[in-house]
């Protein structure tokens, strides 16, 4: 109201009605042809559980924001929105694995979202980018890896990589700064329960704090290193 001629940016209502600090989480999901069948089904159900778990927590429902980018080809399945209004999509598997292009798209999306928060005067936590893949990039990925390295160093985001059966863990290791995790026996649900729990913790933590997350790579956890 300082200036009545200020334009109303798109999304103004969203931030006015819910000015809680945001903790953005971008799911970067491999939906290439090799995910067909059980994996994509489990993944879809995992996302539904993710939504349910987050919305069950009244604070996380207002703070955690979810966006989904799938590949290939790189597609924005849903834009960032808080967990209470997020609608899980039904993902279909086909195409190849242009992981490099998808990662760059994700990095841009996160950058764009942070700018929107800043313009709206909304505080935010360090964004999470969560890559899940069952293959190896079919495109040029070195520049994406370089950008992840820079981003992690400057604290612009945290990038996590999870490999499903068949994923090339060597390349994942080169892409992500953090140790990539390998999903045990298609345990997508456990992964998403863990992710929602982590988001809940993050949304209650001090922004920019060391992540208070449970190690998933325990004997009972969903991952191995």
């Amino acid at each position, binding site marked *: 109201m300082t200036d009545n001629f200020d334009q109303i*940016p798109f999304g*103004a209502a969203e931030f*006015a*009605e*819910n*000015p809680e600090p945001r903790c953005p989480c971008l799911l970067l999901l491999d939906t290439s042809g090799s995910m067909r069948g059980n994996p994509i089904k489990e993944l879809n159900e995992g996302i539904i559980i993710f939504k349910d778990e987050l919305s069950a927590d009244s*604070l996380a429902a207002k703070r955690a924001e979810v966006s989904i980018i799938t590949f290939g080809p790189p597609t924005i399945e849903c834009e960032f929105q808080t967990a209470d209004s997020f609608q899980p999509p039904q993902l279909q598997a086909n195409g190849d694995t242009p992981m490099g292009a998808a990662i760059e798209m994700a990095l841009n999306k996160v950058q764009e979202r942070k700018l929107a928060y800043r*313009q709206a*005067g909304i505080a935010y936590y360090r964004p999470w980018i969560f890559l899940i893949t069952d293959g190896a990039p079919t495109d040029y990925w070195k520049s994406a890896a370089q950008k992840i390295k820079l981003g992690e160093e400057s604290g612009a985001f945290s990038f996590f990589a999870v490999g499903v059966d068949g994923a090339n863990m060597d390349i994942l290791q080169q892409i992500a700064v953090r140790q990539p995790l390998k999903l045990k026996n298609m345990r997508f649900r456990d992964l998403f329960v863990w992710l929602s729990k982590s988001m809940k913790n993050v949304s209650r933590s001090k*922004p920019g704090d060391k992540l208070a997350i449970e190690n998933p790579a325990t004997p009972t956890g969903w991952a191995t290193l």
Partner: protein
Amino acid sequence: MSLLFTSEGKPLTLAAKLGEGGEGSVYNLNGLNSYVAKIYHQPITTQHAEKLMLMKNARTDRLLSVTAWPIDILYNTPTQKTTVGFIMPKVTGYKPIHELYSPRSRKQEFPKADWRFLIHVAANIARSFAVVHEYNHTIGDVNHGNIVVSSDGTVKLIDCDSFQILNNNRVFLCEVGVPEYTPPELQEKSFSSIKRTINHDSFGLGITIFQLLMMGRHPFAGQFLGGESPLETSIKEFRFAYGDLAVSRRMRQPPNTLPISSLSSSIADLFEKTFGNQGVINKRPTPTEWIVALDHLSKQIKSCKTSPAHFYYNSLSNCPWCVLESRGLVLFNFITSRNEKDTFDLNLIWGAISSIPPPSPAILPSPIQAQPSAMAISAKQDKIKNRKISLIIFFATLFLTWGLFNLLGQAIIGVVTLLIGFITSIKFWIFKSKYSLKLSSDYQELTQKWNHAKERWDREATNDRFINKLRDSETAKREYAALSQYRENELQKLKARMRDQQMHYFLESHQINKARIEGIGQVRKNTLLSYGIETAADITLSAISQVSGFGPSLSQKLLSWRKLLESEFIFDPSKGIDKRDLDKLELDIAQKKQKIRMVLDSAQGELMQIKNDIENKRKFLLEELEKLEKEKAQINIDKKYIN
């Protein structure tokens, strides 16, 4: 955990778990309905156990009225060996403060809460802080979840075991804190060794009050002109994003927020003192100061004429919520109070409206008779003079040419002389004086001015606006009178649909999630849920066909489940129209009424204003037109005279 014991050795057992936090979980207690137990996840230190014991002994009714204070300790043996938790009053019907200050959750969780309610709750929070401070205890960890509110606006402070407790010069520290509520002087410091003060609590209190009054905004979340600025940094650097000094802190308040001055200058001043750097040296406004200021503000509130949900500081000339609403930001539910005393009298109001006389008749100035001006007379003389010269030159040329041809035989010179003479003669003949030229351009300009003034006259000075407004009011009056008929009709419609509606509500009461349907497991139920298919009433062939993974056989199973329920439904005409439908209708009528009343309430004033406005404009425009009319007449007569 099987059997627990109170400090008096009385055995107790835990019932259902109510919630889980970082330090422990909260349970119901069997046989004790109004109390709950908090059980720690990890064994606690002896110092912490001592603190709990001390709190138990220091409990007072006054403290218990505003907090969930520990009233007894829980041990794992009857002989008080190891403290595993404590008993506190059960706080039911209260919701975390963030559900109230965030507009979206407020509209759901506190649907009737308006700005007055928010001020009221803010003052109650200050009161609860003041009570804790009376005993020299400190809250320490002020945050979005530790303050809970009930629907009547009373608050309670929970998680009291983290309070800083003072007893006989012994201090038990509060070792936790949330950075968004932590004052600048404590940012990035470890709480395990810091003694908290009332001045620290006042910072957290200020943040909470700000969030309540300012639609959930955090005072330090704004647009920092120096790039990224996380909340803790902004707090540490005193970058309060509101107020006159924000510019000097290179901060701009977020778009679509109220200016801090719209909360009254005294409240704005308290915020500045709380968040500015002078607050560090022990000078932040205390809870008591807040109570006084907020109570005072609550007496300076005015209600909005447009929306019954809007209340605002009475020194503002316009409703700030309406401004935001016009941009599509609806921050309060539109709810009309049914118990409101009805002082609206249609006949009285219509009488007042229809008694306003229309503006007096408008008469345009009539044509004016004018005399040629002195300028015109001299221009006319000039013209005659020039014509005379022209004639003389003409005849002289003829004579000269005749002489050159016949007497001197100079034919070529004769032709040249003839041409020069004729041209000169014509030039004098068509001579136009400066004034005459000016008349032409003036005439054009004047015509434009005249047309413009006439346009304004037609637009602003005729009775059209008055007549239109009166007609609108008449329409509103007719609609108002027709409302009872409308209500009747709608009721008849509801009655006719009573069976269908009863069936609908019956089906709606059967949730898919809780039902056993052959072939539909939890996963499929979740899928249905995500498509908004929640109850039997939502099951239709067209709705299910949208859901991927539901083929004919599954659809059939769902449909037969619905059919089965339909066959079990028994219509009960004695139930009448469902209350939900009646409520909806009443709300609809209340909103229509409100809208019409607004039109009629303001009509009298507006008509008066329009009438005055028309009459003023008319006076002004009439003068203008008369002046122009005079000028026009003068130009016309002058032109006529000269020619």
